[in-house]
């Protein structure tokens, strides 16, 4: 009986572990202008960037405000070396001519932080 309960518990744990969260925690969708301009929305992965750069690089040096939707960035600014263009210039990271690497989201996505937890935080904005 106890052994059976243990097996059930283990199965439940495995099932819980296998339930996928949707987006990765901290992923940001940027679609204020993308689709209107005829390209896919941008998916910005915080996890990928924080392995390589501390928060302060983008949110202090590059001037990104710490609120999804508060930064209006144009391709012109990026190609002039501002915001994403500080690194996405073909030197530190791929250049702005690799559209599909950043503009990689599904059509119709809403701008904002995705993959947050069950609090009002990310959805509240």
């Amino acid at each position, binding site marked *: 009986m106890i052994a059976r309960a243990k097996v059930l518990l283990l199965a439940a*744990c*495995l099932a819980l*572990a*296998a339930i*996928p*969260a*949707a*987006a*990765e*925690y*901290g*992923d940001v*969708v940027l679609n204020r202008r993308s689709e209107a301009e005829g390209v*896919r929305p941008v*998916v910005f*992965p*915080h*996890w*990928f960037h*924080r*392995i*390589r*750069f*501390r*928060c*302060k*690089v983008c*949110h*202090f*040096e*590059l001037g990104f405000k*710490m*609120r*999804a939707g508060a930064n209006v960035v144009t391709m012109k600014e990026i190609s002039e070396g501002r915001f994403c263009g*500080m*690194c996405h210039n073909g030197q*530190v990271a791929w250049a702005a001519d*690799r559209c*599909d*690497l950043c503009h*990689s*989201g*599904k*059509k119709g*996505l809403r701008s904002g*932080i*995705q993959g*947050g*937890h*069950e*609090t*009002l*935080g*990310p959805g*509240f*904005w």
Partner: protein
Amino acid sequence: MPRRLATILLLALAAAAWAQPDLRRWLPLAKDGLHDPANPAIRELQEPREALARLAPDTAGNQVRWMQALDRGQIVPRSSIDPSTEVRLLEDDILLNLAGGTPIVRFPHRAHTLWLDCSNCHEKPFVSKAGANKLDMRKILQGEQCGICHGAVAFPLTECSRCHSVPRPSRAGAPPRPAVPPGAPRP
């Protein structure tokens, strides 16, 4: 002979318990509900599993203990792009929520300044004076104050005891137990 068998079995069980399997799972980008699977360039993007599986495990957020990953040198993120940018660090701890009902909050400046610059928090949303900020858990849960990051990119608000980490002195006047040091396993 049965005794020998029992010993072997015990050793095998101990080994299995020691080698805890990593149950963390990350969705492939093409199935995460955000990326367009029809985009051929998606194959050039790094998969979360490839990057995150080797980092200190966690049960929440990205399933990575980012501070541990940094302290153990598993990641070496750059502090600045421009060499002339001043990288500022602060090492002190601030105790918060001294009059509340939940355990006292130990705010470590070290962990925060290793990632962030002073100006990211001061003087907005927090003034640089201990006790001068009216912190409100309801506001935090709505994405204000600490909730600007915690609940969005930093460890989520489900992890109460990581901030509320210092037990209150009992009414009998016993001194508070020391805070859980950063990186230590949770009780």
